[in-house]
Each structure stands twice: as C-alpha cells, then as structure tokens.
C-alpha cells in the first residue's frame, strides 16, 4: 500500500512538470505585451518598461522564466500579478469558494445520481427506467451555459426561489450554480450506476443471495450496490478535477468569485503567472483526487490489494 502510493506520487512528477510546461508555453505565446498595456493610453517609458520586465523576469528566455517559476512554486512563492498583488492572495480568495461549489455539486451527483441510478436499474425496461435514460441524454445534449442562464432566469428572476447571482458565496446562493455545474455529470452518474446495477443484478452471487431468502432491499444494498459503486467512484473522483476546472462557464453566468472567473479574467489580461499558478493547483487537485479513488478501490472491493 505504502509502496504503491509512493510509486504513484513519483509518477505524478513528470505529469505535473509536463502540464505546467505546456500551459506556461501557451501563456508565453499569448499575443500582446502586458507591460506596454500597463501604460494604457500614455506613451511608454522604455526605461520603466524595462525595469518592470526585469522585475517579472520577462526579459529572460522562455525556459529560464519557466524554471524560475518552478523554483518559486517549490518554496511556496506563486509570484505577483502586474497590479502588484501576490498571486497567493488571489488563490486564497477564490479557491475556498470553488472548492465549496465543487463539493456541493459532487454531493448532488453522489446522492441524487446513485439514488436515481439504482431505482432505474432495478426497474430495468420499465417506464421509470426509460424516462430517466431519455432525460439524462437530454441533459447531456443541452449545453451547460443554456441550462445555466435559463435556470438563472426561471428560478432566480421569475420565481425568485434562489438568488440570481452568487457573489457572496453562501451555501444558499451557491445551490443553483451547484445544480447547474452538476447537471451533465449527474446524468453520467445516473447512467453509469444504472448500467452497473443491471449488470450486477444478474451476477451469480446475487442469485445465491436471493435463493437463500434474503429480502430484496438487503440484496440490493449489500450485494448489488457495493459492487456497482466501483465504476461510479472512479467517475466521481475524476469528476472532482473537472468540476473545479470546468466551473468557468457556471461561475461566469452566476458571477461566482471563484477559480473559473479568476482564471478567465487572468487569461483575458494575459496574466501569465496567475494562469499558470491556478492551473498548476487544479492539476494537483485532479491528480490527488484520482490517487484517492484508486486507494478507495481497496476499501470497496476487498479483492483489490496494493502490494
């Protein structure tokens, strides 16, 4: 177990290096000179501009800039933005909100997704099952941003059930964005759970459990559900990363002051340091979530052991 975990953590290093290098190269290639943009309409003072460039290491070649950035990350220094704020301040401001949002979405997926999936699975071929299958496809087919602003209009403005924006990041105001963010993944979780339940319902050990007279609910919860959860857990683990990084559209619609909004703003302002720092953290979250899932397998399925 320990050996497996340490090997996995070692494998993360090249992935992390590759991802940061890739995103750093892309941000580096962005057009426009952020330093001259700082002067606005005023004439550019070359001396000052050069001084700023030197301060941000922008006068160094690409690979040196990247290595300096990497060095900073290791000592916990994420650099400063062009407006002089430490990037770590932005990170400390936006990450808690997005983590809250992502976990709310994840809980919705877990509870609603597994419950509906199980109900559809044990009613395979019935009306409920077909309706759920069809509805889940419709949800996948409608773009998140359409779901988002239609939901915002109907529930936030017309009916007034939820706040239309979530600037304050309270649980109540984040509920609507969380539902929208969970939407597509929820549909996948339902379908995955259902397929898995259907497959396991015809397994030998389930037939045996039924034959020895166990009640229907005990067979479903103990013998079917536990085995069916493995693919669902895999999906949810990978989805946590997607939820955190993919919240750009949802946060944009509901004006949530989170990672997605900060990232989008930073991209538009060519704020290389901020973009790369946030993405690096997102990738770390993603990789660790996946590692956690792999370790969870052993809990769900005693047959899986990591030597």
């Amino acid at each position: 177990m320990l050996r497996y975990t340490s090997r996995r953590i070692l494998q993360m290093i090249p992935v992390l290096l590759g991802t940061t290098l890739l995103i750093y190269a892309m941000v580096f290639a962005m057009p426009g000179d952020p330093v001259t943009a700082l002067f606005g309409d005023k004439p550019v003072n070359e001396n000052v501009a050069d001084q700023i460039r030197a301060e941000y290491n922008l006068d160094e070649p690409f690979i040196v800039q990247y290595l300096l950035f990497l060095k900073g990350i290791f000592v916990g220094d994420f650099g400063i933005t062009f407006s002089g704020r430490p990037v770590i301040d932005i990170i400390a401001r936006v990450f808690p909100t997005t983590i809250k949002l992502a976990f709310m979405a994840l809980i919705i997926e877990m509870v609603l997704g597994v419950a509906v999936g199980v109900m559809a699975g044990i009613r395979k071929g019935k009306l409920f099952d077909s309706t759920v299958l069809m509805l889940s496809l419709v949800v996948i087919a409608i773009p998140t941003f359409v779901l988002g602003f239609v939901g915002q209009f109907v529930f936030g403005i017309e009916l007034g059930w939820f706040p239309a924006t979530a600037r304050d990041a309270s649980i109540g105001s984040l509920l609507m964005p969380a539902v929208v963010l969970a939407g597509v993944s929820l549909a996948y979780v339902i379908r995955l759970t259902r397929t898995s339940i259907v497959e396991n319902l015809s397994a030998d050990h389930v037939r045996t459990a039924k034959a020895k007279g166990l009640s229907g609910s005990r067979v479903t919860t103990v013998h079917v559900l536990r085995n069916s959860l493995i693919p669902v857990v895999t999906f949810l683990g990978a989805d946590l990363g997607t939820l955190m990084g993919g919240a750009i559209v949802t946060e944009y619609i509901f004006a949530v002051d989170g990672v997605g909004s900060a990232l989008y703003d930073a991209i538009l302002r060519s704020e290389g340091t901020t973009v790369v720092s946030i993405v690096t953290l997102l990738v770390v979250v993603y990789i660790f979530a996946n590692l956690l899932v792999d370790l969870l397998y052993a809990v769900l399925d005693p047959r899986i052991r990591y030597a």
Partner: protein
Amino acid sequence: MPDTSIPRATRAGQQRYVAPLDETPLQGVDAVSNESDGSSLWKDAFRSLIRQPLFIISGLLILLILVVVAFPWLFTSADPTYCTLDNSLAEPRAGHPLGFNQQGCDIYARVIYGAQASVMVGAFTTLGVVIIGGIIGAVAGFYGGWIDALLSRIMDIFFALPFVLAAIVVLQLVRDSITVWHIIGVLAAFGWTQIARITRGAVISTKNSDFVTASTAVGASPLKNLVRHVLPNAIAPVIVTATVSLGIYIVAEATLSYLGLGLPSTIVSWGADIASAQTLIRTNPEALFFPAAALAVTVLSFIMMGDAVRDALDPKARTR
C-alpha cells in the same frame, strides 16, 4: 445378460422413440453449414440495431441534419446573413416562419444554415481525435514497455488539463482571426486522450488473445498482427466513444462561442446566436429557443446513436 447394444426403435415397452443409428445421417456435432450466413459481432449488432427504435429515430434525425448541412437552400430561401434593423425582433410572417432576432436576421434561416458550422466542427474534430488518439493509443498498447510508459505519461499530461480552459488559452492566441479550423484543431489537440486510452486498453486486451498468438505462431509480423487482427477488434469501443463525443464537441464549440472565443460573427453558428439571444430571454425567448433546440436535437441524435450502437455491440446488454 443385459442388452447393451444401441436400443432399437421398435422394442416393446419403450416409452420414447429413439431413432436407430442407420436412420440418422452421420453428422459432426460442430459441423458448420457453408450455405448459412456466418455471424459476426457486427452482423449480430446490426440485426439488433435495426429493431431498436432509438437507433431508427437517431439515424433518421442524423440523415435529416446531414441533408440540411449539404443542401440548406432546400429548406429556406431566406439569406441568413441578410439582416436589417427594420426587421429587429419582427413577428413571424410569410417566408419567415420563426420571425427575426435582434439584428433583424431571419431566425429560421440562421437555424438552418447554422447546422454547417456545428456539424463541421463536430465531424472534423472527431476525425482528428480518432486519428491522433487511435494511433497513439494503438502504438502504446501494442508495443508496451518504455514506449507505453512514455505515451501514457503524455496522455496523463493532456488529460489533466481542463479541456475548456486549454481551448480558451490557445484560442486567445488567435483571438482576432478565429476560423473553424482553429476550433477543430484546438478541440482535437486536447480531446484525443480519451480515445487513446480506450484504444490502448482494447489493444492490450486483444493482443494477448489466442488468435493473435496463433497468428504470431504462423509467422505474422507484429505490424501485420496489429493492422489485421488487433485493430479490427479494438474498433468497436472507439466507434461508440467517437459518436458520443461528436455531440460533445458541438457543445464545446457553442460554449467557446458563448465565452466570446468562438467563431466570428461572419459565420452563422448556433453557439453565437444562443449567446447573443441570452439578453432577450424575457422579451423574445424564441430567438434563444430555436437555435438552442436545434443544437440540443443535433447533439442528442449523435448521443442516442452512440448509445444504441454501444448496446448493440455489447453482448452482455444485448437481448436475444
């Protein structure tokens, strides 16, 4: 002494008729008739597919969409790019069944002509993803060893980057001159990992099967094995995933347009139309509804098709 010879049909007291050996033609138990059609995964799948309503509906819808893409002028005589503010938000009238949007463009004509950009992005991105992902996945799975380790890490790198985010950063580079090909390129460049992982998995699982060992035993080269035996068996899951992702890429294009990094306004596109109609949701919901519905129906037909094909190709899910 009990009679141990083969029982005769006409013996007294016998309950059932047993055909005597000399009346039954001699036949091997596993003999296969050459006249009857051979069955394969694909034939079985097709046979169960044409009986599935989901497949028929999605197939017809996709056919209709393709006709709309190829011959849009069959469906409308209006020009989707002819917009005049005199017609801004005008009611439907003869020849313009869905009315006009804020810029005074014919909504129906724009819905019809918008299919081209969406389907083109979906189809070519899928093609690109299958080519890149298929080759990388097949090479990684088939050769194994350090090649697999290297390619798998590269897959991890691209997989860990949030898809929309990477697209935004790259499209920012060409912000003022985005074409359909930029969108296709960027979606394919960051979307190939899923197909690569599936191909790799399928290749690894078929590589070790008996018929490939047999083929190696009679002297087939590794490359011939890969092309002739392994790939055809790995292709089913790839087709399923590709069909579903075609729909997903159409959604991705619309999302990029919504974020202002999609196609320029000179190209008629559902995503851009949905984005610009967002502010009209209270007063003129039809300007929003029709492009969104067209998009959703298109995506839905491809997802349903993928779903039906998956069920048909999966012997476990297939009802005989």
